[in-house]
């Protein structure tokens, strides 16, 4: 499998020139964004096994701050990205500290509740646009406003961020921190007995995940030029992250990419087939996929392939 990584990198790098035009570039950007968000979620949800179903709170914070910086002070949206990361970090600590000393369910419940809390609250707060939301610069004043007409620059910016997230995950996987995360997921009690500082490790994972998710949100709002409570903090944002990571293989490096590869084209297709009322059917499909995954293959496509591939190899050798 040694050739696969450079091949993947090359494919991603040259994709816009293989499949050209706004339609394909749009899907490419959507794919990258989905992969980034899901990879960010994967750190705490996949590796550490702490299932957050309200990760949209970090995404939304990251999405709002750039447009807020523009709306309030006329600054280029990019300037708001670090602020988003900082707020997300604080939020992660606020949620993780009380819940990580309790059973896992409390954390999951807390993530939904806080995401909803923020969504409703932001919807009533005029300073951040209330229910209407915020807009970015319609026309770029300079290059650093990052308002490109074409999808292409966004594609490469997102690709760079994805590379950073994946590389970080890769380094984490090999490190003491990564081993501890996996140990916590595999058996907290045993991990404790080996000296793993469970609570602190979970918290670190959540903080790292929150920061990356925040960046994903920032990328989204900078590109789209618009954000509102639903697109920032809505439950569907959380669902998408979870399903993509889980479908591909939660707790694996490339799982989120595989999931994004499967789901983003699917979503584009169902939106076209089902038309206007389509989004409802898409989410019925998502719900169904998640249930089936949970019931039959919680390890996702990665796990499924690990089980099936040896059998296929054997058959091809026998033939």
């Amino acid at each position, binding site marked *: 499998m040694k050739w696969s990584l450079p091949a993947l990198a090359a494919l991603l790098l040259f994709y816009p020139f293989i499949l050209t035009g706004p339609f394909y570039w749009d899907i490419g950007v959507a794919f990258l964004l989905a992969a980034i968000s899901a990879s960010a979620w994967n750190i705490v949800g996949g590796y550490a096994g702490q299932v957050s179903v309200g990760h949209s709170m970090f995404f939304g914070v990251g999405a709002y701050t750039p447009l807020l910086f523009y709306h309030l002070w006329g600054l280029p949206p990019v300037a708001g990205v670090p602020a988003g990361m900082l707020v997300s970090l604080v939020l992660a600590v606020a949620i993780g500290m009380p819940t990580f000393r309790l059973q896992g369910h409390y954390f999951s419940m807390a993530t939904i509740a806080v995401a909803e809390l923020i969504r409703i609250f932001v919807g009533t707060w005029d300073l951040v646009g209330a229910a209407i939301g915020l807009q970015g610069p319609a026309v770029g004043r300079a290059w650093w406003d990052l308002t490109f007409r074409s999808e292409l620059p966004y594609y490469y910016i997102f690709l760079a961020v994805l590379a950073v997230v994946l590389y970080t995950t890769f380094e984490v996987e090999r490190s003491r921190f990564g081993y501890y995360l996996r140990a916590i997921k595999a058996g907290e009690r045993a991990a404790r007995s080996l000296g793993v500082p469970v609570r602190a490790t979970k918290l670190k994972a959540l903080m790292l995940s929150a920061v990356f998710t925040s960046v994903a949100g920032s990328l989204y709002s900078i590109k789209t030029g618009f954000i509102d409570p639903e697109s920032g903090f809505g439950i569907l944002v959380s669902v998408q992250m979870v399903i993509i990571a889980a479908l591909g293989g939660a707790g694996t490096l490339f799982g989120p990419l595989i999931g994004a590869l499967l789901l983003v084209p699917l979503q584009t297709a169902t939106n076209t087939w089902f038309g206007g009322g389509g989004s409802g059917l898409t989410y019925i499909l998502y719900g169904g996929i*998640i*249930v089936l995954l*949970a019931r039959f293959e919680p390890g996702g496509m990665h796990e499924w392939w690990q089980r099936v591939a040896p059998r296929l190899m054997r058959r091809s050798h026998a033939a």
Partner: protein
Amino acid sequence: MLLVQVIVGGLLLGAIYALFSSGLTLIWGMMNFINFAHGEFVMLGMYVALLVVVWLGGGPAAFGFAAAFALFVLGVIVYISLIRHVMRGPMLAQILSTFGLALLLRYTAFWIFSANFVSLPQVSLSGTVNVAGILMPVPQLVAGIAAIALTLALHLLLTRTTVGSQLLAVAEDRNAAMLMGIRPDRMQALAWGLAAGSAGIAGALMAMSYPWSPSVGETFGLTAFVVVTLGGFGSVPGAMYAGLIIGLIQALSAYWFGPIYKDIVVYALFAALLWLRPQGLMGKA
């Protein structure tokens, strides 16, 4: 006087919260499993009530019973086909299973019933009564009292009957229960049926007074989380008190700060609970 009315209204709604939350806490205490689709069970109960009224012209007894029964069956089916298999697996699978189910139920309801808010055509129970100067809409009064009665009934079922003690035995120690000849699988299926059924009938009761759409499941689910956390892990009496308290807090928040804040305050309370007293009023944490 208006304040007293608000308080009573809050308590009556809180009684319904207590009813549907006791099912959630029963499952949690018994199987260490949180049902993320519990709010959807309530929501479906409301639609069952609607269908009974619209198609069969049934009254409160009919649609109440229908909601309870239909959801009981759904609860058992969900247990047998899904929960039983994920229970012993990884946490991710457990949480995703009911989370996915919630999405499935919610968006299927959106598809079938559309996102419009509906209400129950009120035939038999209507009007208001004047109790010591407080004006109470009859449906809310009846619903609240029924909810309290049903929650108490559930509590008595668990603590005073043989079946109840079998359920609690499984909750306490699965292996010991098996040695005593109790079948944990059956008891757990029954628990799911009871939990879903009580959620369903709670929905039917609520449908008598409040309009709804498929989106309410999400809110009810979160409310149930707050109630069971406040009441304490696994405690049905705790859920009863907590339900009333939450209903009261909600009503007062809406009254003092505005209707938008009723949910914000409840979720903020949840966050505060997690920091300060996660074991709630009566739980074992």
